[in-house]
C-alpha cells in the first residue's frame, strides 16, 4: 500500500467513509476488506477520482468457504461464508490492488436465495461478463447488472457448479449426468 502513495488508505477512508472494514498489508498480495453494500462506491472512487486511477478490472472471484464433511468442519477456524475478491489494475501507475468482501452463503441463510452484491458494471463495462460468469458458476446475484444471465453453462442449467455443496444433476435433457 505504501508504494501507492502515503495517505492512499486515508484518502480512501475520507472519500468513502465506513466502507473499508479491514486490511492486511503483510500478505503476499495485500488486500482491503470492504463492506459488501459499499463495493460499488469504493470501486467508483478508485476508478474515477483516486490519485492512482485503477482503470482496469482484471478479475472477480467468488470463493465458497464451506467444509462439506462435518469432521473437518469442526476443526476449521472460519464460519461458512462466500468471499468475493476483486483484482484491480492501474495502467498508469502499473500497480495492482485487491478488494475483498464477505457475503453470507445464502441470502438471510435461506438455501436457494442467492446472496446479493451491487454490480460494478457502471464503473467498468468489462465487469459485465465477469459478473455473469460469477453468477453462473458461484451463484451470486449482482443487483443493477444490465443483463444477468448464465454465460458458460446452458441457459436452463440448475445449480451453481463452483459451490462446495454442488451436486452434479443426474440427467440433463436426456443425457446421464453420472
Amino acid at each position, binding site marked *: 500500500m505504501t508504494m501507492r502513495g502515503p495517505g492512499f488508505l486515508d484518502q480512501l477512508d475520507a472519500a468513502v467513509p465506513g466502507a473499508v472494514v479491514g486490511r492486511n498489508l503483510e500478505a503476499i498480495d495485500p488486500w482491503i476488506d470492504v463492506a459488501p453494500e459499499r463495493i460499488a462506491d469504493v470501486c467508483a472512487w478508485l476508478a474515477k477520482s483516486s490519485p492512482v486511477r485503477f482503470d*482496469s478490472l482484471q478479475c472477480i472471484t467468488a470463493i465458497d468457504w464451506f467444509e462439506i464433511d462435518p469432521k473437518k468442519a469442526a476443526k476449521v477456524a472460519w464460519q461458512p461464508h462466500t468471499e468475493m475478491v476483486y483484482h484491480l489494475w492501474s495502467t498508469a501507475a*502499473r500497480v495492482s490492488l485487491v478488494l475483498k468482501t464477505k457475503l453470507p452463503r445464502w441470502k438471510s441463510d435461506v438455501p436457494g436465495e442467492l446472496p446479493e452484491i451491487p454490480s460494478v458494471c457502471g464503473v467498468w463495462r*468489462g465487469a459485465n461478463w465477469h459478473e455473469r460468469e460469477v453468477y453462473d458458476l458461484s451463484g451470486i446475484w449482482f443487483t443493477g447488472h444490465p443483463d444477468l444471465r448464465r454465460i*458458460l453453462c446452458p441457459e436452463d442449467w440448475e445449480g451453481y457448479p463452483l459451490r462446495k455443496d454442488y451436486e452434479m444433476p443426474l440427467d440433463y435433457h436426456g443425457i446421464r449426468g453420472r
Partner: protein
Amino acid sequence: MAQMLDDDPRIIEFDVRTDEMLVNMGPQHPSTHGVLRLVLRTDGEVVSEVEPHIGYLHRCAEKIGENLTHRQWIPYTDRMDYLAAMNMNLGWALAVEKLMKYQVSEKARHLRVLIVELNRIASHLVGMGAYGLDLGTFSPFLYAFREREKILDLFEEACGARLTYSYITVGGLTADLPSGWLVKCEAFLEQFEPIIQEYHALLTTNAIFVKRTANIGVMSPELAIEYGCSGPVLRGSGVDQDMRRDGEAIYTAMYDSYAFEVAVMKDGHYPRDHVYPAVPADAVLGDCWHRFFVRMLEVVQSMDLVRQAIDRYSACKGPLGEPLKLTEKMPAGDAYLETECPKGQMGFYLVSDGSAIPWRVRARSSSFSNLAVAHELCRGCLIADVPAIVGSLDIVMGEIDR
C-alpha cells in the same frame, strides 16, 4: 378521400421497409475460432448488433482444480490456451511458486524464457495464418503452419509432446534439454528471419488485406483498458503495457537480464535493427491492421529473446534442479499472478488452506475480456467485417470457456 383511405384497413399499402434479420454465425462456422456462436442482428448487409454466445467448450477446470494437487493441475492449464500451452504452464507454476515463495534455479529460469518465447512465436504464427483464412486467402495459413511444425518438432524433442506439453511445472521443468537441441534451435532461427519478410509481403502490405483491415474495428485505448483487454489487442491501440516488464517481481525477474523493446504501436516502439513495412496510409491506431502488425512485431521480438536466452542458458553450469514433489504442502493464503501470454495477460488466482490441494483455483482468461469488446467494435460494420474483427482479436475458445 385521403382520410377514408387511411382508415380503410383493407387497403394495405406496402411500405418499402427493410426488416431486421437475426442471423446465427456459428457455433459450427468456419470462421469462428473454435466453437463460438455470434448472433447477428443484420439489416441487409449492415450488422446492427452482435452478441457472442460462449460456453460450448466449458469443462469447469476450476472445479477440478479443487480436487487435484497443484502439480496435477498443470495438464489442465495446457488445455486452456492450447496454442500456447507453455505460457499457461508457466503462469500456473509461477502463481504457486509465488504463494510458496519458492525460487527456481537460474538455469531453469533461462530455459523457461527460451521455451515460452518459442511458444509465443508458434502461437502468433497460428494467429497470422488463421487471420488470413478469415479474410479469404488460404496460402499464408499453410506457410505459417510449415514454420510452426519446425517449432513443434523442437518441443517434441524437448518434452515429448507437440501441443499440450506440461513441460514447465511447479518448481522448474520436468526435464532438461537433450544435447544438440540448441544447435537445432539456432538453425531454425537463422532460416526463419527472411521468411517473416515473406509474411509481410503476403499479408501485411497486401493491398486487399490492407483494404479489409485498415480502419476497421477501431478500438480506443480507453475502451480497451475499460474492458480489461490485454496483449497485442491492447498494444494495438497504443497502450504501452507488457507484463514482462510491468508485472509482478517474480515474473519480471526472469526477464531482467534481457534487452527487449515492448512492441507497441506508439511513436516508433519497434524492436531494433529489423526491416519493417511502413504503416499504410489509411490505417488508424487501434484498427485490425495494427493488432495484426503488433503480433508480427512480437514474433521478431521473441526471436531476439530466444537468441539471448540460448546464450544465457548455455552459460549456466550445473544441474537444472528438480521440480517440487507431487504433494508438496502449500502455506495457507492466496496469490494472484498475471503473465504475458501471446493472447494477452493470463491471470491465475490460487487460494490455499495449507494442504497440497488448493481450496480454490481461478483462471482469468485474456481472450475472455478481448472477446467481450467484440460487440462494441462490430456495431454498424458489414457482415464480412465481423470475422475480420473477431479474427483480429485472436481468441481461443479453450481459454475463454475453461
